[in-house]
């Protein structure tokens, strides 16, 4: 018997065509049924969703051997795999990946509300037997991934600032991978949330919008530090809805937080969130989505994981730290702002900032903006440095990994999104300028 690797057969495991599974009772009676989900674990292991106590489960607990007949959803190539049950996982990254994927499959097959994952049954693959039969020609799905990865890592390696790195990432995903809708989020560990720093493909960037850990594919990818990929529409993982529901019904309901609307497709058909790690720390989450079903395969997931393995250390390396900061150069006289003043209110409770009556931003980014505006008003300053922000105790930036550059990028994009008459513009490494096209009237509420 020839032992193929599951690495080559991952398309068969997407749940597009249900596989059949046969087991054998201790008395030798066969049992056969369909499986909702067969998932790739590694080259020699697969996982099967355990949802109900049934004959298949009874059999494998007594006789661990099972046989699965699976098909390539493009070519109809068939494979019989002989597998042996090892164990069941009921929590953790693999379980969460399966749970998310099952939600997509349930929705695709009209079984939402019926499928409930109790566990991920892990099996070792003992043998893979190609089964004869008519096949269709293989199908190309999207761009060739390795050349796209190569071009992207080359482009990222040439970046010398964080904002250039993030722009280049977005450009590469769009141009080389044809990924139209994308977001990059960064974690606020203390608050157990992620905030959007940049995005592409949407009417507004959504910079500053937040997603709690554990909510939607992005939140689960962050919490479990594992990629989460769904290739069918799955309402419970559509983060927009998930976040709204959590806010409406959860512990946060009484806080009625000002919310920056999440950008994103209302009903994405394919979703993929990849955690970006460096030195064991969660640095960011990359999220892509599509209105097309089955758009993101296992190979794309692997490719983006590889890309993010470079992205994480690059983000860390390009975050300026105090040693890099330059002092502001001589002030260029700012053109005096004209027109009726814009009322800007600051609430110390959560550092939220409102322009007129409209919520703008809160948290560290809100505190930074407030400091800049006050310094501008009282000292007439427009040029600032990262260093002075780091030294300002009122901002309460963490001593290590303060994400200051990322927060400034998000603040700058949020201001652009709001078409605000305030702008932040980078003027050099660790330096930036506050630009006002209207006078401001500051109120500390």
């Amino acid at each position, binding site marked *: 018997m020839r032992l193929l690797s599951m690495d080559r057969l991952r398309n068969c495991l997407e749940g597009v*065509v249900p596989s059949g599974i046969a087991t*054998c009772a201790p008395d030798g009676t*066969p049992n056969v049924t369909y499986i909702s989900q067969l998932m790739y674990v590694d080259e020699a292991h697969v996982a099967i969703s355990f949802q109900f106590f049934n004959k298949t489960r009874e059999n494998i607990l007594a006789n661990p051997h099972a046989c699965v007949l699976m098909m390539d959803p493009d070519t109809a190539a068939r494979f019989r795999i002989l597998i042996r049950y090892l164990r069941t996982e009921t929590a953790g990254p693999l379980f969460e990946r399966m749970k998310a994927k099952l939600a997509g499959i349930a929705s695709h097959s009209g079984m939402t509300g019926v499928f409930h994952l109790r566990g991920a049954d892990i099996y070792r693959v003992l043998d893979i037997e190609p089964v004869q039969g008519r096949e269709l020609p293989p199908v190309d799905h999207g761009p060739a991934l390795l050349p796209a990865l190569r071009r992207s890592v080359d482009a990222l390696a040439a970046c010398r600032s964080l904002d250039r790195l993030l722009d280049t990432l977005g450009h590469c995903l769009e141009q080389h991978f044809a990924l139209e809708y994308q977001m990059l989020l960064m974690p606020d560990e203390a608050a157990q949330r992620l905030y959007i720093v940049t995005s592409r493909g949407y009417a507004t960037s959504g910079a500053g919008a937040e997603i709690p850990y554990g909510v939607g594919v992005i939140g689960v990818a962050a919490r479990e530090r594992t990629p989460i990929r769904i290739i069918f529409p799955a309402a419970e993982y559509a983060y927009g809805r998930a976040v709204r529901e959590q806010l409406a019904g959860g512990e946060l309901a009484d806080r009625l937080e000002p919310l920056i609307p999440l950008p994103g497709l209302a009903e994405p058909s394919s979703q993929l969130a990849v955690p970006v790690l460096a030195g064991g720390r969660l640095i960011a989450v990359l999220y892509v989505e599509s209105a097309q079903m089955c758009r993101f395969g296992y190979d794309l997931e692997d490719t983006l994981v590889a890309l993010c393995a470079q992205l994480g250390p690059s983000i860390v390396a390009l975050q300026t730290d105090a040693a890099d900061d330059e002092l502001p150069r001589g002030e260029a006289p700012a053109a005096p702002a004209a027109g009726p003043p814009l009322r800007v209110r600051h609430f110390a409770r959560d550092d939220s900032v409102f322009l007129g009556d409209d919520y703008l931003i809160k948290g560290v980014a809100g505190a930074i903006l407030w400091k800049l505006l006050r310094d501008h008003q009282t000292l007439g300053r427009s040029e600032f440095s990262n260093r002075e922000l780091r030294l300002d105790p009122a901002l309460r930036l963490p001593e290590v990994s303060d994400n200051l550059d990322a927060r400034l990028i998000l603040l700058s994009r949020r201001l652009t999104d709001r078409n605000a008459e305030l702008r932040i513009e980078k003027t050099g490494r660790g330096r930036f300028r506050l630009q006002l096209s209207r006078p401001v009237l500051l109120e500390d509420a």
Partner: protein
Amino acid sequence: MSILEDPALARFVSGQMSMHVAACDARGFPTLVRGVGYRIDPGQPARLRVLVPQSQSEPVLRALAANGRIAVVLSEPASHRTLQLKGGDARVESVEPADVAAMAPYVEAMVDHLRAFDTPEPFMRALLACSAGELAVVSFTPAEVFGQTPGPQAGARLASGEAP
């Protein structure tokens, strides 16, 4: 009355369902194959004749020839209504013209069933392709029937007159 003559079951079975056929060898290793049709011969109304491609079915046919124990799952793709039939007297039959004739309508019905899931027609035709010369037929008397529609009740034995 045999299981196949139960009216509720007969109605379900007559609907051209998606099908897999399983057997176990003497070591307790299971195996399975996708069926390409089935029919009930009026001369033997208690037996289900299951059509499979010979070249895809070798391990299944070998195990059935050795012990006669068979399990067949029938599922209606659109509704997920599923049942499993089990028997202990499976045997390989000689292929009759009516077996060959049963394949084409089965394929057409499956193409129709799966269209609802956006499964491309060429895919279903490739999956179920089997020439007359390739056809093997197994028959058995269903001795037990189990409801297997996904859900907590899956696996329960069906009572007489009960459809999945």
